[in-house]
């Protein structure tokens, strides 16, 4: 559309609306950063006004409390993202290129798993992970996030692989290529951009997840950073600056992904919802 064709009062009105909306979206984020940069004294004397003497003391303190959990989240999110992406690529490939009796039903049953509220499987999950001896371990969290990632990675890769022409597969088959060969020589190279989209989608989701982390861990050894940040609240009454600093540290990886790879983020969110 052509904004410049609009009359001046309308244009000013539109910018005012945009300003009000931006205030709504940015005020909480500004508050977060503003609070995190205050010393304990400044926070106590003037909690809301813009910071006068910014200090990174709260960041230092917060990092000391959540660094182990931050590392846990890095390992957990990277491993579960990689595993769920590769498994989803494998199954998305089969569902797109090798139809068999019942394959559509099986595909449907797998992808609707994404839409099931996690609360409905939470109790058996805790017992199952416990019975494997994986309660309070990173591996338990990785296994869980991998499993619950598969419905959406299967759907995303299906949407990605389906446009690859079936004739390409048929020619390869005539040349004697196996299911495995076709996967490594045709599908995998062509779906590499898909891995970027799916990887970002999965990483941000798993990084931000809280319920499984809360339910499947206790204590610092294996808890993800979301749970550690939530726990900062309990430690000291007035230490909101530390709580906010920890919160900010915890979203830095996802924030960087949004700022630098916004196009891929948008693509992942749209592929996961609009197309079916």
């Amino acid at each position, binding site marked *: 559309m052509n904004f410049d064709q609009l009359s001046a009062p309308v244009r000013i009105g539109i910018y005012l609306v945009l300003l009000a909306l931006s205030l709504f979206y940015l005020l909480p984020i500004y508050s977060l950063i503003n609070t995190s940069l205050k010393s304990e004294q400044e926070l106590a004397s003037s909690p*809301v006004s813009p910071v006068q003497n910014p200090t990174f003391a709260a960041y230092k303190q917060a990092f000391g409390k959540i660094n182990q959990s931050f590392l846990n989240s890095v390992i957990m999110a990277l491993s579960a993202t990689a595993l769920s992406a590769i498994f989803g690529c*494998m199954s998305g*490939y*089969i569902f797109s290129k*090798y139809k068999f009796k019942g394959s559509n039903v099986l595909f449907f049953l797998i992808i609707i798993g994404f839409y099931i509220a996690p609360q409905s499987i939470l109790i058996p999950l805790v017992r199952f992970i416990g019975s494997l001896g994986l309660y309070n371990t990173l591996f338990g969290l990785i296994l869980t996030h991998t499993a619950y990632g598969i419905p959406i990675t299967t759907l995303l890769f299906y949407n990605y692989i389906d446009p690859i022409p079936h004739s390409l597969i048929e020619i390869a088959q005539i040349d004697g290529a196996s299911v495995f060969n076709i996967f490594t020589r045709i599908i995998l190279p062509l779906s590499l951009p898909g891995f970027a989209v799916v990887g970002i989608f999965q990483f941000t989701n798993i990084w931000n997840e809280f319920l499984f982390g809360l339910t499947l861990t206790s204590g610092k050894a294996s808890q993800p950073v979301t749970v550690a940040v939530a726990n900062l609240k309990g430690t000291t009454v007035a230490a909101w600056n530390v709580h906010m600093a920890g919160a900010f540290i915890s979203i830095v990886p996802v*924030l960087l992904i*949004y700022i630098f790879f916004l196009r891929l983020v948008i693509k992942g969110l749209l592929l996961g*919802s609009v197309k079916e």
Partner: protein
Amino acid sequence: MKKSVQIGFFLLPAVALTGIFIYYFAGWSAWASMLSWEGLSGFGHFIGLQNYIDLFTKDFVFRKGLINTLILSGSFIAVTLPLGLLNAILIDLGLKGKKAFRLIFLLPLSFSFVVSATMWVWMFAPQSGTINTLLRGIGLGALAQPWLTSSSQSLLGLVIIYVWQFSGFATLVYFAGISSVRTELLEAAEVDGATTFQKYIRVVIPLQKIPTFTVLFLLLMYALRVFDLVWLTTGGGPGYSSELLATYMWRVAFNRNQFADGAAIGFVMFILSALIVIPFVVKMRGDTS
């Protein structure tokens, strides 16, 4: 190796993991929800639907959670849909700085619910919160509210938080929908003398049915399952004023250790998920094929 064996190998991780973690677990929840609960000695004997009957007839918190889930979903979606459409149109106008505004609108999507909860508790704090302080600062101190700490306003507070968190998603889907409107249609409208405003009202917005349906469905799905955003702000309170199914399930199962009732609430949520997802998938398949 036979082709079918190779196909089986490729499907095995996906089928085995979703089979266990979704279908076996859902079945287990359904079964466990029909057993009695004997406290420390665990599950007892089969009692059919008694746990469900008790939830619906005797447990007022469960009913409150169900009603609150419906109220919260309805209210925040009623605001998020038009707001998302407005945001998308504003970006689509092609004004200066549209990329910056797009990033601003989408930024809340990147925030984990834990961090959002932290920020909003601070924003809404009755004494030293950002919102009340600002209201007092501009001479509107009379409008300062107790927000999340009041049982009559806690749900309203959650609606505001949900709108903040999720409207970026609506913006995104609507923006994609608006961008896909064919330029010929817009040019034809222009030839007919339509103003920019009329082009949106008569051409663009009527074509946004599928985006609207998509956003509605996904927001319903989130409204049912979101836990942290509530657990870490109101905690379902004060009293049970903002208790939702998602928080009550956790409270019953993991605070009170009543696994049979917890499984029953979980299975009610399973049914609700199915009621949301099935019409969506049927409609989407019907529209695309």
